[in-house]
């Protein structure tokens, strides 16, 4: 296990370098830089501008900026955000964590919706229930998640007005968050997470449900499930122990890749639900060409992708004895 992790670490270095190089120079392709609005402002003198340029390192050629940034990154310094005048890591990490909470919550709901529905669809293939699930899920898939979120918000507001229930429809914490005990705080965050997470999960569930249904159908026809039935196992054992266990193998292999995809996936919902995740901050950063913030975020996403893939590999080795982590 340890040599495997070490090797994966070494293998990830070129990936990281290439990703950082790409993102850094793609940002450079956009015309202007962070100081362009300032340059257009007649109230800022050219001396001030030159000082700022020197300060931000924007007077040097791009490759020098890149090398300097890379060099600092190996020391754990992701650079300074132009806009916030603070170390990039300090300001984006809490935001990324918030997004991760939402992403993981949505992932959990995603699987708890898609797995039962997919298994049901396979066991009762082409039944009215299977068809109804398909229609509803594809209908939801057809909605952009932000639009679905708006509809959900509308209905929750109606519900709130009708019943007086305090269902949160935005933000991450209630107003009295600081006065709550630790456990109460966790519950409060959970309360705020559940609706955006659910919206995202159900709007995407069609794909995974379909994959699980297809996998189940394929494994259900396999020889070893017939062997299990010939042994006299119950239908429940045949489906869950013998079929499902094998049907999820390709899905387990794909879990790691979902992590960064989900962070960008939750973006729309963070905007609609005014949730303090990374996406609203990133959008502003891209608009103002806050170079190191964007690059820093990309590097962290790449790291998450690599970590996620390692987790997938380990998980797959746990569930599939034919796969060896080595």
């Amino acid at each position, binding site marked *: 296990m340890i040599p495997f992790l070490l090797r994966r670490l070494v293998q990830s270095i070129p990936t990281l370098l290439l990703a950082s190089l790409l993102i850094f120079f793609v940002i450079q392709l956009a015309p202007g830089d962070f100081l362009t609005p300032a340059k257009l402002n007649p109230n800022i003198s050219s001396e001030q501008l030159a000082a700022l340029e020197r300060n931000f390192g924007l007077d040097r050629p791009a490759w020098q900026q890149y090398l300097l940034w890379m060099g600092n990154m190996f020391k754990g310094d992701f650079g300074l955000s132009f806009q916030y005048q603070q170390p990039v890591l300090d300001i984006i990490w809490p935001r990324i964590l918030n997004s991760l909470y939402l992403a993981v919550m949505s992932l959990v709901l995603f699987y708890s919706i898609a797995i039962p529905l997919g298994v049901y669809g396979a066991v009762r293939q082409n039944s009215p229930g299977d068809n109804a699930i398909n229609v509803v899920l594809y209908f939801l898939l057809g909605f952009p998640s932000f639009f679905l979120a708006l509809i959900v918000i509308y209905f929750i507001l109606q519900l709130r007005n009708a019943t007086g229930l305090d269902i949160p429809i935005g933000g991450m914490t209630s107003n009295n968050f600081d006065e709550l005990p630790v456990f109460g705080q966790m519950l409060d965050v959970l309360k705020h997470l559940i609706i955006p997470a659910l919206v995202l999960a159900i709007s995407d569930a069609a794909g995974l449900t379909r994959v699980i249904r297809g996998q189940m159908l394929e494994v259900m026809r396999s*020889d*070893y499930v*017939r*062997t299990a*039935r010939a042994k*006299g196992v119950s239908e429940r054992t045949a489906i869950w122990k013998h079929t499902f*266990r*094998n049907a999820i193998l390709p899905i387990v292999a794909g879990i790691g890749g979902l992590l960064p995809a989900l962070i960008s996936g939750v973006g729309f919902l963070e905007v609609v639900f005014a949730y303090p995740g990374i996406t609203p901050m990133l959008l502003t950063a891209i608009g103002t060409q806050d170079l190191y913030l964007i690059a820093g975020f990309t590097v962290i996403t790449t790291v998450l992708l690599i970590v996620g893939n390692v987790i997938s590999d380990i998980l797959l080795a746990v569930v599939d004895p*034919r796969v060896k982590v080595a």
Partner: protein
Amino acid sequence: MTHQGEVLLAVNGLKTYFNTDDGVVKSVDGVTFHINKGETLAVVGESGSGKSVTSLSVMRLIPMPPGKIVEGEVLFTGKDGKQKNLVTLPEAEMRKIRGNDISMIFQEPMTSLNPVYTVGDQIAEAVMLHQNKNKKDAMVVATDMLRFVGIPAPEKRVNEYPHQLSGGMRQRVMIAMALSCKPALLIADEPTTALDVTIQAQILDLMRKLQSEVGMSILFITHNLGVVAEMADRVVVMYGGRVVEEGDVVEIFKAPRHPYTMGLLNSIPRPGEYVHVPGQPKGRLEAIPGNVPNPLNLPVGCAFEPRCKFAVPDCSKAVPALEDTGQGHMARCIRWREFDQAQHEVSA
């Protein structure tokens, strides 16, 4: 060596049909045969003749839908001594029979074991289901069974996964699993087809040895007549979903009464007849012309008529009856008496 014992399994007029988009496929169309206690019955036929569907119907493992047992009965006397009709038995009762009274081994040992569980787990599963044993005791039984089927170092193998074993070893594991509850009937669906020849012989030897130790009956499904000669007491030849000939193995090999059986016997390679010997004309292996008829569109009369070199116009009028030709030998051919006559003249 005919067994005049009691009947263990009697299949009467079994019809298993499949509903497909193109129409109803009559995979098994009125099959009748029986197996006595301790006997080995071989069911022979080409792919698509309905032999596998027959065995899966006995186990009630036909995927339903699209399959359906539309008619007939399967009378089976279990280890408890009671005779039951497996076609109408409730599913919960049927589960107690599967793996316990009747167990099955399949053609493909490579894909018939679940890749994510150890072979020990998979054998123990059957033991735990039918013998009220806990996991630990069941694993001991599993190890004993692996030793019983001649797997070296069973204590080690019991914790291995299927992918760590060779095809022959896996088929031994399948046999160990099938025999773990000492069934009264073992259904072997082409158990050696996917194995190479030396391993085939080992597996057949093993099955014969275990049969004499356990005392079970075997329903042996195959298309290999060499295997039939080696294993079976009696033979049922199937074609187009029907039994076309049935009888004692020696009798059938010596005096087949149905042209299909004759064709099958003539297509067995024999040394010297088809191997080119210098100075002699090149021998050729005889083949039955044509293909198995489309199961959606079987001939009105004898299903074999389009391929039969003895066919006469009467053959295509109606399905011939399965007639007794003497000494328990049955044939479904309107001209069997002529073949009988001819064979008597040859031997006279």
